[in-house]
């Protein structure tokens, strides 16, 4: 059967072009790969190659014709023994010429590329809701042990490494140096150099190696000395770790944890003081955890290591040395994606997480003296975010203040505030106030650094403002 040669699309956006020149005439024999014509678009001149073998039976579009629509038959190719006469009478489409077919999956492909409504129901399906379990009950009489966040993180990793031989930790100075911030202290001695791996200073490279190992089914914990340095690795975190599950249709992903201190420490200035909570929480395919207490650090890091998805675990250098009560249980695992009500209250909701909680906790104590009863929510996880707990609280208090250290524009607080106004607008008795770091690179000078960070006083002021006091 004669084959129609169609006006090709040579770029995703091309809809028509000029057939500038024929390089073959009627009667010429062509083989696959021969250039038969040149076409011009607004961007380039391109050659049209023959795909099939045969003899040019007829040129249907004259050289120099403008605005030839993509998929218009431009010539007819004859196979062995076919005659041009038959073609002139009735050029037939073969199976490869969708322009002449009418089935929905075929002929409308080009339209559907520009306008997806052509072949499918274009209604966006509802985003599925996932139920997150509540925290496990702590049995009555469980001994509470005071420990630092640092110890809690170390214990979490050690417990999970004992439990699963596929878990290993890699990063700069994690092994022989015992961790730049001593989070991996003792792990080399217990698990050996094959599972506690010192890497060269090469964030982009070792993040990629970690993702590759995870794609192969291992469960890496990639420690960044700080998340500031992970900017060198962010392509592997986002493009490789976060997106592979989706791009592979669910066949493979990256079951791993990226962890390390995040945000400002003390007097380390602009390049070493950034809070990446908002950055990573923007990305579908990641889970993002930012704990405050030692118990949460332990229970959530254990959950993160077991999670089959890539988890960003944002710690904080200043919190490392702070002590909290941690339940002494054999296997204390907390749910990722569940907020914790740090203090129940009725007058106003304050939402914070990570280091932000230190300002909120101080402010709440002060506000208690002033007779304002704050409900303080520690979000703990930024993605998936436990908005139901926040909304429920706001419906009760009618007022909301968020507290974080990151930059103010497109902050996590902005997202919370927007969600609350959308879902609980009628319950709000005051505008939401979002407290964040100042809109400046972190300064070095002690006095300026203090000004750049949020403080308890700002929280007190904001809470009073939303309470009109």
């Amino acid at each position: 059967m004669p084959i129609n040669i169609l006006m090709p699309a040579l770029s995703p956006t091309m809809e028509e072009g000029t057939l500038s020149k024929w390089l073959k005439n009627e009667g010429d024999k062509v083989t696959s790969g021969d250039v038969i014509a040149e076409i011009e678009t607004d961007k380039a001149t391109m050659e049209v190659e023959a795909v099939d073998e045969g003899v040019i039976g007829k040129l249907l579009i004259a050289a120099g014709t403008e605005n030839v629509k993509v998929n218009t038959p431009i010539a007819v190719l004859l196979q062995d023994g076919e005659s041009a006469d038959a073609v002139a009478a009735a050029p037939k489409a073969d199976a490869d010429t969708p322009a002449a077919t009418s089935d929905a999956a075929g002929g409308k492909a080009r339209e559907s590329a520009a306008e997806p409504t052509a072949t499918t129901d274009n209604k966006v399906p509802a985003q599925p809701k996932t139920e997150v379990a509540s925290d496990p009950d702590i049995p009555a009489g469980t001994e509470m042990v005071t420990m630092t966040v640092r110890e809690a993180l170390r214990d979490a990793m050690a417990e999970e490494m004992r439990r699963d031989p596929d878990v290993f930790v890699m990063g700069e100075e994690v092994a022989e140096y015992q961790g730049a911030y001593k989070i991996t202290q003792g792990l080399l001695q217990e698990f050996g150099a094959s599972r506690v791996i010192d890497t060269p200073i090469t964030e982009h490279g070792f993040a990629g190696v970690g993702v590759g190992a995870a794609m192969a089914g291992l469960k890496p914990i990639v420690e960044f000395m700080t998340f500031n340095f992970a900017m060198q690795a962010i392509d592997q975190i986002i493009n490789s770790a976060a997106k592979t599950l989706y791009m592979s249709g669910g066949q493979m992903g990256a079951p791993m944890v990226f962890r390390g201190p995040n945000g400002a420490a003390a007097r380390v200035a602009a390049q070493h003081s950034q809070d990446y909570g908002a950055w990573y929480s923007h990305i579908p395919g990641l889970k993002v955890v930012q704990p405050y207490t030692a118990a949460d650090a332990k229970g959530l890091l254990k959950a993160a290591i077991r999670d089959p998805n890539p988890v960003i675990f944002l710690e904080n250098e200043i919190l490392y040395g702070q002590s909290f009560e941690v339940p002494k249980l054999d296997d204390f695992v907390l749910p990722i994606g569940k907020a914790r009500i740090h203090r129940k209250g009725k007058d106003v909701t304050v939402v914070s997480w990570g280091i932000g909680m230190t300002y909120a906790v101080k402010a709440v104590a002060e506000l208690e003296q002033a007779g304002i009863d704050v409900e303080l929510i520690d979000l703990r996880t930024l993605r998936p975010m436990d908005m139901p707990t926040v909304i429920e609280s706001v419906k009760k208090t009618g007022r909301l203040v968020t507290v974080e250290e990151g930059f103010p524009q497109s902050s996590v607080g902005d997202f919370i505030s927007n969600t609350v106004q959308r879902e609980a607008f009628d319950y709000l008795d005051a505008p939401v106030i979002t407290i964040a770091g100042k809109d400046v690179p972190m300064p070095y000078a002690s006095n300026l650094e203090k000004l750049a960070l949020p403080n308890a006083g700002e929280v007190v002021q904001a809470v009073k403002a939303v309470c009109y006091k």
Partner: protein
Amino acid sequence: MAPKTAASASGRKTAKPAKASNGGPIVDFNKDEELKAYREMLLIRRFEEKAGQLYGMGFIGGFCHLYIGQEAVVVGMQMALKEGDQVITGYRDHGHMLACGMSARGVMAELTGRRGGLSKGKGGSMHMFSKEKNFYGGHGIVGAQVSLGTGLGFANKYRGNDNVSLAYFGDGAANQGQVYESFNMAQLWKLPVIYVIENNRYAMGTAVSRASAQTDFSQRGASFGIPGLQVDGMDVRAVKAAADEATAHCRAGNGPIILEMLTYRYRGHSMSDPAKYRSKDEVQKMRSEHDPIEQVRLRLVEKGWASEEDLKLIDKDVRDIVADSADFAQADPEPDVSELYTDILL
């Protein structure tokens, strides 16, 4: 180019009488191997031609990078692998997937964005995977697959098996920083990784000499002590010889090795590339004098291992597979809208 002979990477002397066009060693193929190589390369060639055609007809959207001309590289490499070895590559990946045994239907339907595609239509040309066939993508970010492939090698070493991972990348990706970060770790930790640099002479529109201070890519691991071979990537026997040497090197625990494949792509960088940066004569010369498929075809006929009739049958068989994949890829429905929100998190 001044190709080096493949001075033995793992200390072994290779004393093969026959030589590739660049003086490197080849392995003599028996009849079955020649026929297998012919058929697999032809499948890639015909598949890619069809993909180009479907692109022209608007069935395939976005970016589409064809592998035509480079078929001997992936087919020769694959002939040296064993079950469990892993493959990862960049965005010019259709040939690698077919060579790994992934179905033509699955690949073509992914190109058309249909539900029967290997990624359910959610990955497209540059992002396909197969756990079953140990194919780890299909990556759209130039160079990223090199670190990932090093991680696959890391996993093999961690598990103590003797599998190797193949990380393919081009002469363009060879200038990315993370490639050298990966080389360093792979050699430091003696990871079983074969870095296959497909030097097709152009990084998109930039000739290697305009982008690379050192155009002998086999030497790009020299500062880490990683051995490298320059291979005639248009001769499938030379590729297989290098692959044999490289897999032996890795499986023996000697760490990574680099294979620079001197190859050529006939088509533009992507479908929308008019390829004005090279002459028609250059392309035509490669096609007529070094075509990887034609080389095998001539040997098959010369040695009397296949008649023209036999070859026509293979050709027909291959065309049927490709036509079937194209029919399937056009008729298969688009993904159900409910797939929008699946496979984001487990």
